[in-house]
């Protein structure tokens, strides 16, 4: 996986911005510290050089002039210093030192106690603080010059291990806290998204807790208001549908009874068929309107036998289709479900396959015991013409039917698939349709274990 420069998540983006800022601030701090540290080191160096130069000068100045070369020769050898006595002011390839450096060195050298009569008659400083060499010429009161050459040690602003450790620890702590705080601040967004998703599946999903920072409380309250409006809307629609369904039952019952007194056998049969159709529509509307799944309690049911039973019932109702029904999969498979709802959902799917696809080949596969969170999968395939792929999702809209089925006698109301999907989603599963490669339609059902 490639790490993108600009991440997708809000938390990652915010963290990235804050961490970049932190990096800039830390880098600046580091530079300031280094400059400061170098300055300090340089001052210490100059102080040291001034002390040494003046000390050597004093030791020689108190001696008679003739003795001095011997004493210089006897000086213990040092790494960074060479000393000699010259008759004239030292002249090197080096430029004269800047005035600030001259003043600083002069000041430092004055701190060294020297009797007034022995003080240097003249001072020359060549080179600069940037090194690598500094030449100091001090003139004895009696004429010759003492020339001292110092090699300046390179500055090491990073020489402090404890500073580096402290710096790394501080940066790491700030980074960790930044990431933690960003996560914490952006988590309400994820909660809101999850709640919206839940609401999409179940309008009666519990309300969002209204707590936390004031913006989050406002968002949660707005979301809850919206959810309750949607709930009321769905509830009203459901009430209306159920009311219509209820009211239609009495006239249908009357007509059924009345048709029993029709002597014309053919007429009565036709009327009863009409009434059956009417009743099927009313019961589908009621099943869709009623929150049937919520009212029924869950229990354990053998889904393999349930599918066989539905196929048996289909074969009983339509003996002509019996040869086109098949089922394979395990002999028994227990699931926890709402038995009547689940049966209605699967009956709708198998009924669609038989009515519009002239066949129902059911395949049941048990979840793999090894894979946690695996699902029960059921496919129901038919041999019909299928559905144009751009229309497939629409079939799950209430009262949606394939155009040609409206005129057919097996038309139905267009609630079978929405009811099946509602029920399966209420079980935590789903159903999708797809065209088979070899022609016909396939309904894929998933159910959590």
């Amino acid at each position: 996986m490639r790490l993108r420069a600009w991440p997708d998540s809000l938390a990652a983006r915010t963290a990235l911005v804050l961490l970049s800022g932190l990096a800039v601030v830390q880098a600046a701090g580091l530079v300031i510290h280094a400059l400061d540290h170098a300055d300090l080191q340089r001052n210490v160096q100059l102080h040291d050089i001034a002390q040494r130069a003046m000390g050597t000068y004093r030791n020689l100045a108190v001696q008679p002039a003739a003795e001095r070369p011997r004493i210089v020769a006897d000086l213990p050898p040092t790494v960074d210093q060479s000393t000699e006595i010259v008759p004239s002011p030292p002249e090197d390839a080096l430029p004269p030192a800047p005035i600030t450096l001259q003043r600083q060195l002069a000041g430092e050298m004055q701190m060294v106690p020297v009797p007034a009569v022995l003080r240097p008659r003249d001072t020359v400083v060549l080179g600069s603080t940037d090194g690598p060499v500094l030449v100091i010429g001090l003139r004895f009161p009696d004429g010759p010059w003492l020339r001292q050459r110092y090699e300046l040690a390179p500055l090491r602003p990073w020489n402090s291990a404890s500073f580096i450790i402290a710096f790394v620890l501080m940066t790491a702590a700030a980074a960790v806290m930044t990431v933690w705080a960003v996560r914490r601040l952006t988590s309400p967004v994820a909660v809101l998204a999850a709640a919206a998703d839940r609401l999409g599946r179940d309008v009666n999903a519990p309300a969002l807790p209204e707590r936390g920072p004031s913006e989050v409380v406002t968002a949660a309250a707005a979301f809850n208001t919206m959810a309750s409006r949607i709930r009321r809307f769905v509830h009203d629609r459901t009430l209306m549908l159920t009311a219509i369904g209820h009211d239609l039952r009495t006239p249908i019952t009357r007509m059924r009874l009345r048709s029993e007194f029709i002597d014309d056998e053919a007429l009565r049969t036709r009327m009863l068929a009409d009434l059956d159709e009417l009743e099927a529509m009313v019961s589908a509307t009621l099943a869709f309107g009623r929150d049937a799944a919520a009212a029924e309690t869950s229990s354990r049911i053998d889904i393999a036998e349930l599918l066989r039973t539905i196929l048996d019932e289909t074969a009983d109702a339509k003996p002509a289709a019996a040869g086109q029904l098949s089922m394979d999969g395990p002999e028994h498979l227990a699931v926890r479900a709402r038995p009547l709802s689940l049966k209605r959902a699967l009956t709708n799917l198998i009924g669609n396959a038989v009515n519009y696809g002239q066949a129902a080949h059911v395949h049941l596969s048990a979840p793999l015991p090894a894979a946690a969170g695996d699902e029960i999968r059921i496919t129901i395939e038919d041999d019909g013409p299928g559905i144009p792929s751009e229309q497939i999702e629409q079939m799950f809209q209430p009262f949606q039917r394939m155009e040609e089925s409206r005129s057919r006698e097996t038309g139905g109301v267009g609630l079978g698939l929405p009811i099946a999907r509602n029920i399966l989603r209420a079980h935590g599963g789903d159903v999708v349709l797809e065209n088979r490669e070899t022609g016909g339609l396939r309904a894929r059902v998933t159910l959590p274990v």
Partner: protein
Amino acid sequence: MSEAELPHAAGSALDASLLVIDDDGEIRDLLARFFEREGFRVTTAKDAREGRRLWSQGEFNLIVLDLMLPAESGTDFARWLRGQSAVPIVMLTAMGEETDRIAGLELGADDYLAKPFNPRELLARVRAVLRRTGEHGPTHATTTIEFADWTIDTIRRRLIGADGVEVPLTGGEFELLSIFVERANRVLTRDMLLELLRGRQAGPYDRAIDVAISRLRRKLEDEGRNAQLIKTVRGGGYVLAAEVKRR
């Protein structure tokens, strides 16, 4: 059969008297006409109050009760009636309202039909309930029947295995199983089974009894050459060989 010995046991319609309680006037009248045509004596009531009054005045073999009544509900009336008598009750319920139906059956109704019902099915149910109570006396108190490793929940019409898992049955299979457990250890010929199934289901029961039995055996895990639960009797017949407990 021994129907004549029991007080409310009217197996044939001719001597059976029904009390029909429904708030819709036309349905009331049509039901009365329909049942009278089939040879029943019918009295109708428009609400629970009138039902109570008629009940105290007459002798009825079966009550057809609409659950949705104005003022006092059908369930309340059924509860009151159960306090008075064990008379069989067939409920007419709102379509698919599972909770209503279960509540009604738990109150002691003997059967139910969802509105809009098929009148012939209602007739078949009424006859079946009369025959059942005629044979066994009142059966409404029974909510679970146990046999072998199986339990039948008569209210929710479910068959439950020893592991608590429901094994779904078709309507026909459930009726067939009910016939067997009501007549456990009695040999039932194919013709008897067909006749009994006709009494319970509207319309002819087309499917061959043998097919239905083999399906039922498969679901009861009673398959193979020597089925132990639903045994084949030489000479054409079946018997449920199990001890049946009712609760």
